[in-house]
């Protein structure tokens, strides 16, 4: 009679090969290691601070800063506090980051699409652009743009275009709208909100009409033009009603012995260099992300769309791109983070960003505390980008993949 093979049971497995034991041991060991490392880091910092008598604390935040900040977009006086100066610096970083992300995304999409173009010249130019700017260190590029802009004529000999636009090595000055008071500002904010709502609604409705009836309705053009038209009408009406323009266009004008430009808006050298450098550099990465996204959409989709009679532009806009976005968004978020963090190189080209101002603060305030604030601020900014990106990404996913 053949013996029946005995089934293996848990009792037969040696203790050290038991899956539960292995898993739990690994968890406990790694947990202990992580906790020990964190404790070690913090006690080490604490000890170093004590041993070396390094000053720390945050009471300095309410002291007067008394140091100039080169460029500021919200009013700043040297008698303002450290905390306020910190806010000014964060604003400077945010302006570069937000403007940079928007411009880099637009440029990146154009270059990415160009790279896939059937036109040999266009596609090769895009390839050269990507390979060049992606492979040269950002700091080098920033310094390059810095010296390019410095090579422009100085302000007294600069170019004046149409009596309104001043281009020189101090920056670019252009006419800029100024609201003439607090009440007027509120009116304009309210109007802007209404205009945007109307614009979006028009766009949605016209798109719907176009897709259901097939009549060309230009949802994008009308969606943008209508609010602008509304703004122009509102301006005329308000001007007549109040007898005074609620906002006026301030034009830049040179003043005094040194020909300093007053009025309008001046994008100074530092801001220009940062935007040029960051946008061109980051766009080269975004272009590759966009290309990957577009190529991830099956060829059949394009063919089907073309067979339905959609124009190449519409094929891209309505069929390929919406699908490509699912692949594009996650790495795009990480490029937004990179751009924001890379803006910390601004000090090298004289733009007063968060890092450069905060480093200056270490002259008169404890460095340890300052660095904690810098890290906290960048962390907050990065997490905000991630949050926005992830929310958008979630909206884009197919129902089943949420």
């Amino acid at each position, binding site marked *: 009679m053949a013996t029946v093979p005995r089934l293996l049971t848990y009792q037969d497995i040696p203790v050290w090969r038991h899956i539960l034991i292995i898993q739990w041991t690994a968890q406990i060991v790694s947990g202990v290691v992580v906790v020990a490392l964190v404790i070690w880091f913090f006690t080490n910092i604490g000890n170093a601070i004590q041993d070396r008598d390094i000053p720390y604390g945050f009471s300095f935040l309410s002291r007067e800063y*008394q140091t100039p*900040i080169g460029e500021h977009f919200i009013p700043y006086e040297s008698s303002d506090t450290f905390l306020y100066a910190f806010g000014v610096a964060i604003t400077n970083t945010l302006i570069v980051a937000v403007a940079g992300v928007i411009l880099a995304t637009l440029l990146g999409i154009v270059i990415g699409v160009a790279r896939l173009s059937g036109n040999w010249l266009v596609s090769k130019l895009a390839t050269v652009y990507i390979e060049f700017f992606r492979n040269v260190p950002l700091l080098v590029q920033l310094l390059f743009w810095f010296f390019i802009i410095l090579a422009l004529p100085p302000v007294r000999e600069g170019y004046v275009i149409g009596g309104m636009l001043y281009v020189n090595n101090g920056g670019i000055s252009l006419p800029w709208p100024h609201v003439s008071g607090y009440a007027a500002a509120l009116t304009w904010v309210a109007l802007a909100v209404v205009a945007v709502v109307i614009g979006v609604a028009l766009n949605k409705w016209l798109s719907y009409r176009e897709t259901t009836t097939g009549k060309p309705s230009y949802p994008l053009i009308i969606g943008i033009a209508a609010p602008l038209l509304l703004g122009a009408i509102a301006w005329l009406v308000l001007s007549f009603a109040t007898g005074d323009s609620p906002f006026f266009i301030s034009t830049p004008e040179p003043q*005094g012995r*040194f020909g300093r430009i007053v009025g309008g808006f001046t994008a100074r050298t530092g801001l220009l260099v940062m935007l040029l450098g960051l946008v061109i550099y980051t766009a080269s990465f975004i272009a590759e992300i966009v290309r990957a996204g577009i190529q991830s959409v099956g060829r059949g989709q394009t063919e089907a769309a073309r067979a339905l009679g959609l124009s190449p532009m519409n094929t891209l806009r309505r069929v390929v791109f919406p699908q490509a976005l699912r692949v594009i968004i996650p790495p795009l978020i990480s490029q937004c983070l990179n751009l924001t963090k890379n803006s910390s190189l601004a000090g090298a080209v004289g733009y007063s960003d968060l890092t450069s101002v905060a480093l200056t603060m270490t002259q008169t305030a404890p460095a340890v505390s300052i660095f904690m604030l810098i890290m906290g601020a960048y962390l907050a900014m990065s997490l905000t980008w991630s949050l926005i990106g992830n929310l958008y990404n979630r909206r884009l996913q197919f129902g089943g993949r949420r």
Partner: protein
Amino acid sequence: MSRKVLTLVVVLAVAMVALIACQEDNTAAMEALQRENATMESEMAAMEARMAEMESMTAEMMEGGRLETVKARGNLICAGNNSLAGFGAADAAGNVGGFDIDLCRAVAVAVLGDANALEIRPTTAAERGPTMQSGEVDIMSRNTTWTSSRNAQWGNFAPTMFYDGQGFMVPTSLGVNTLAELEGAKICVQQGTTTELNVQDFDNQNNMNLEFVISADNIATNAAYLAGNCDALTTDRSGLVSTRAELDNPADHVILPGTISEEPLGPVVPHGDEQWYDLVSAVMGILIYAEAYGITQSNVPTAVTGDSAVDRLFGLEGDYGQEDMGLSKTAAQDIIRAVGNYGEIYDRHLTPLGLAREGSRNALWSAAPCTDCPKGGQVYTAPLR
């Protein structure tokens, strides 16, 4: 030593594996292993004892302070400037030298007997504070203004090496002749400097309505000024003279008369080590008093001269507290022979820039040992005795 420990660990591990493998029943092997284990344990104990000894030695060294640390390391780490001609700048071969750097060389001679046992850490203005606070450098000699808050936060300032004040340089073509005429100008200023703070005060006090172009280092600041990105460049007057001397056409730029601040520049040492501070201060004293006594690189005395002040300074008779500071008795001989006295250092680096010393604040206070022979300057330290 670490190799020994490693071997030991490996041997132990093998032994343990063997132990487990032979767990069954092998008395002979077991006994052999036990014996081996016993010898190993005694070896371990000896090793541990030696390690404890080493540890206590390191601890002692740390407590003994920076002097011992520097001696054990074999070189002096000095934070310096590498882009300010005359004070601290790299030459064509990449070697950093200058007036400030020579103080570090003098300290290196005093501690290690070799002016080249030196590591220069180029440091930007904004990095200075954190660098000093971290304690990673032994000394900073980098045209740094002595201020009360820096003294409290960064480290202790040894005696002032150079008396300076902040001024402005403008292109001659602007036709500006006085500071008051700078109203409404754009000013190039370097980030993280007292200059930055002073020019803000100057602006506030005189309602100058200035605008600032702030750059991270000398090179970017000067580039911005030369490109006409700003109307005037401001920094310490010595820095202006140094920058102007380096320009292609110095006559196109004029340094305006008048200073807006007090800028005593001197070396800084980390907080918390009095002996090291005393030593650096004494080295400064040696440089200054050697000049006062007329001793140069070429006539360093090696035998008693009969002039008791000179003999004391050069360790030939009497002493000035060398032992307490950790200096060798004849440290001054080595220092002066290697780097020269204060005047020689000045002439080597600053005179070529056009920074006249005669009649300036950087002349000696008096020519010792003469008691009433003022030289008209402010350069002076604690007498060495």
